[in-house]
């Protein structure tokens, strides 16, 4: 079956421009996560969506970052007025439960590599 897909795979933008990154989770997965992977920093949690509940935005680094999830499926992460420090790989993950339990896993997409010049 299809896994988590993300688009674009690569995005190069100029400082100050806005970018939109897209995530298509596994069909039927109710939970969706965004993480950021920076060189030497590992993976950092950004935001979590579960069904129709209010998202957990506690990991968003600044108000330039926002995300939405339409119809409980596709999600878009938007970064406004991009800065060079936003350069990273942005990963999306989905899971079949709202919370991790037992060996339930988060399935990751391949990521979008964002480069801000």
């Amino acid at each position: 079956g299809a896994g988590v897909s993300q688009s674009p795979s690569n995005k190069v933008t100029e400082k100050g421009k806005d970018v939109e990154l897209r995530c298509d989770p596994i069909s039927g997965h109710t939970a969706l996560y965004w993480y950021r992977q920076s060189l030497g920093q590992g993976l950092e949690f950004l935001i979590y969506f579960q069904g129709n509940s209010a998202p957990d935005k506690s990991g968003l680094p600044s108000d330039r970052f926002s995300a939405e999830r339409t119809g409980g499926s596709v999600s878009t992460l938007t970064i406004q007025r991009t800065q060079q420090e936003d350069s990273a790989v942005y990963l999306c993950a989905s899971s079949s439960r709202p919370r991790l339990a037992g060996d339930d896993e988060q399935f990751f997409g391949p990521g979008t590599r964002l480069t801000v010049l």
Partner: protein
Amino acid sequence: QQQVKQSPQSLIVQKGGISIINCAYENTAFDYFPWYQQFPGKGPALLIAIRPDVSEKKEGRFTISFNKSAKQFSLHIMDSQPGDSATYFCAASMGYSGAGSYQLTFGKGTKLSVIP
């Protein structure tokens, strides 16, 4: 504040040897500890996971050892193969009990190279 510390940053092991990666955590509320494997250009994939009521879990060549009192856990890869060459991340969350947060807190990763 880094809540999960991982070491070493990189590791070179000969084929057939044992690879050992260590992690330490600070938050005693963590109750789920997965290891993820990531190949270049791919997203991380779950390798093996453990809960704190178990001291060891083995799946094939991969074993997690967990020391709750020391707040440490480690991944052992037996009979390491060149195909195991990847970046490994330990992680932790408070999700298992159904309470608290559910996102994963990751270590910074270990790049493993298995040489023939």
